[in-house]
C-alpha cells in the first residue's frame, strides 16, 4: 500500500477494524471467504474516497456499511435462487439497518472468536491457517504475509484462495466449537498463534534474525483471545510465554544485528513492562487450576529466566523440574535437548552431554543445528576444544539463517588452535 498520509491512516483504521468487519460479515453471510472479499471491496472503496473526502468520524461503521451494501448487492443480483441465500439476504435487509454500532458491540466478541476458530480450522494445513489468520485477523495484506514467510506474493495469494475454498467445500460452520471438540480446536488456534510468533522471533531463514512485527501481531492476537476465552488456562499460558519472550526482543541483537543468546543478554535491556505482563498472565494461567499445560510450563520456564537478575541467579533446578513436566506432556527430542541444557547448568556439563548423546540418533534431530551447537557448548565447558570447534562448524552448516551461521562460525573460529580472535 502506498505510504501517503491518507493511506497510512487507512492502513491504521484497517488494522483496528478489519477483523471485526470480516467477523461481522462472516456471521451475516455464513461464508468466511465471501466476507473477506466484501471487506476487501470496502477497503478499496475507502482507498478511493477517503483521500479526497477525509476519514469519516466513525471509520469502522463506514467500512462496515460499505461492506454490508456490497453484501446486499451480492445477494440481490447474483441470481442466487436457493432458499438459503434468499433467507440470508432477507435477514440482512431486515436486521442490519438500525444500529450498526450496537449490533457490532454486542456480538463482535463472539464473531471474532468464531472467526479465529474458523481460520485455524484443522481441515487446513498449518501454513494455510497461519496465512489466513494473518489476513483475516491481523489485517495484513497479501504482500506483507508473503514478506513475513519469505515466499512470493502469488504463493500466499494462492494459499489463501485455496484455504477459503477448502473451508467452503468442507462446509466448516462459522461457530465456536463446544464440549470435547473445544480442547482440540483450541490447541490448533494456539499452535497457529505461536507459529506466527516464532516466525517473527527466530526467523527460520533469511538475513534477519528476527521480524518483530510478526511477534507483535501474534502477541496482539493472543491478548485478544485471552479476553475472549478468559477461562482457558493455556491461552494465558501462551500469552505469558509470548510476553516474556517478546520482552527480550531488544536485548537479542547486538549493534550490527548479530544474535545475542539468552545467557549473554544485557538483562537491563529487557522490556520490564512486558515481563510484568507475562508474569501476571502466567499467574492467571496457574490460578485457573488443573495440571499445567505445555504453554504454561514453557512460560514458567521463561519466567525463571525473567525473574533472575543475573544469569548466575537462574534457578536451573526448577527449570529442570519444569522440563521434566514438559517432557512427560509432550515427549520430544527437542524438549529433551532443552532439558539437557538445563541439566548441564544445574548439575554439570558431563550430565548434559550424556543426555544429548542419548538422543543424538533421533531422526527428528538429524539436520537440526541446535543439537551440535548445544553439544559444542558442553564440550567447550569440558575443555574438549577441538571437538567443540567441529560441532560449532557442523551446526553452522545446518542452519539457513545467515546471522546464526556467522555467530556459530565466530564461536568455532575462537577455538582455533593457536589463534585468538579479538572482537
Amino acid at each position, binding site marked *: 500500500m502506498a505510504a501517503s498520509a491518507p493511506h497510512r491512516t487507512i492502513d491504521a483504521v484497517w488494522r483496528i477494524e478489519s477483523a471485526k468487519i470480516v467477523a461481522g460479515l462472516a456471521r451475516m453471510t455464513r461464508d468466511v471467504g465471501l466476507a473477506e472479499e466484501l471487506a476487501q471491496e470496502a477497503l478499496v472503496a475507502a482507498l478511493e474516497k477517503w483521500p479526497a473526502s477525509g476519514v469519516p468520524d466513525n471509520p469502522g461503521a463506514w467500512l462496515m456499511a460499505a461492506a454490508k451494501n456490497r453484501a446486499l448487492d451480492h445477494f440481490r443480483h447474483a441470481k442466487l435462487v436457493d432458499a438459503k441465500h434468499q433467507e440470508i439476504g432477507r435477514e440482512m435487509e431486515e436486521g442490519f439497518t438500525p444500529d450498526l454500532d450496537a449490533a457490532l458491540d454486542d456480538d463482535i466478541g463472539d464473531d471474532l472468536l468464531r472467526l479465529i476458530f474458523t481460520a485455524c480450522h484443522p481441515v487446513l494445513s498449518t501454513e494455510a491457517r497461519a496465512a489466513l489468520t494473518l489476513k483475516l485477523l491481523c489485517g495484513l495484506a497479501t504482500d506483507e504475509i508473503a514478506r513475513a514467510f519469505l515466499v512470493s506474493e502469488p504463493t500466499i495469494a494462492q494459499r489463501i484462495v485455496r484455504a477459503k475454498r477448502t473451508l467452503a467445500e468442507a462446509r466448516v460452520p462459522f461457530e465456536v466449537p463446544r464440549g470435547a471438540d473445544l480442547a482440540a480446536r483450541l490447541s490448533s488456534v494456539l499452535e497457529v498463534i505461536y507459529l506466527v510468533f516464532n516466525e517473527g522471533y527466530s526467523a527460520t531463514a533469511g538475513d534477519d534474525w528476527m521480524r518483530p512485527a510478526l511477534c507483535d501481531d501474534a502477541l496482539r492476537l493472543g491478548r485478544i483471545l485471552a479476553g475472549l476465552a478468559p477461562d482457558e488456562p493455556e491461552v494465558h499460558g501462551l500469552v505469558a510465554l509470548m510476553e516474556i519472550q517478546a520482552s527480550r526482543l*531488544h536485548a537479542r541483537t547486538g549493534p550490527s544485528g548479530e544474535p545475542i543468546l539468552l545467557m549473554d543478554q544485557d538483562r537491563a535491556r*529487557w522490556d520490564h513492562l*512486558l515481563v510484568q505482563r507475562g508474569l501476571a498472565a502466567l499467574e492467571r494461567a496457574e490460578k485457573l487450576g488443573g495440571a499445567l499445560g505445555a504453554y504454561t510450563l514453557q512460560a514458567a520456564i521463561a519466567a525463571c529466566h525473567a525473574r533472575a537478575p543475573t544469569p548466575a541467579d537462574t534457578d536451573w533446578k526448577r527449570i529442570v523440574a519444569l522440563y521434566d513436566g514438559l517432557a512427560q506432556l509432550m515427549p520430544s527430542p527437542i524438549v529433551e535437548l532443552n532439558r539437557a541444557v538445563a541439566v548441564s547448568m544445574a548439575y554439570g556439563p558431563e550430565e548434559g552431554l550424556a543426555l544429548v548423546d542419548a538422543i543424538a540418533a533421533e531422526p527428528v534431530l538429524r539436520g537440526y543445528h541446535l543439537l551440535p551447537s548445544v553439544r559444542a557448548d558442553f564440550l567447550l565447558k569440558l575443555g574438549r576444544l577441538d571437538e567443540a570447534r567441529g560441532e560449532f562448524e557442523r551446526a553452522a552448516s545446518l542452519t539457513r539463517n545467515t546471522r546464526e551461521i556467522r555467530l556459530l562460525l565466530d564461536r568455532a573460529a575462537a577455538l582455533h588452535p593457536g589463534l585468538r580472535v579479538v572482537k
Partner: protein
Amino acid sequence: MIVIPKGYEKAKPGAMPDAKIVAEMSKYNESLQKAGVLLSMEGLHPPSMGARVSFSGGKPRVIDGPFTEAKEVIGGFWIIQVKSKEEAVEWARRAPMPDGQLIEIRRVQEFEDFPEDVQKAASNEPALRERLAKQGKKG
C-alpha cells in the same frame, strides 16, 4: 506509544469525574484491552492537589496547587503497543473526551534510539528500570 489526555487544569481539589464519563471511559479502555493494544494505564488526581517544583537561578522553588497559570495539564496516560503513529492517532480519535480537552501522542523512547554517547551516559538507566519494575511488582 504513550497517549496523554490533557485539559485537566480547572478541576477542583478532590474533584472526581462524573460517573457517566467514567462509564464511557471504562468502555473505551476495555476496547483498547480487547484489541490487544493496551499495555498499561493510569489516571491522575487534579493538579490542584499536587505541587510544582520550579528551577530557576539554580534554586528549586516549591509552589502548591492550584496553579493559576496552568494550561494543558496531564490527566493520566495510556501505554499502547501499535505499529504506527497513525494507528495511535486512530485510537486517540475514538476516546470519549469531554469538549475542550486534547490528547497528546508520543512515542516511548527506546534505549537504541539514543546515539552511542547518550547510551553510555544513560548506561545505568536500564538497570534502574529493572529494579523499579521488580519493586513495583505488586501493582
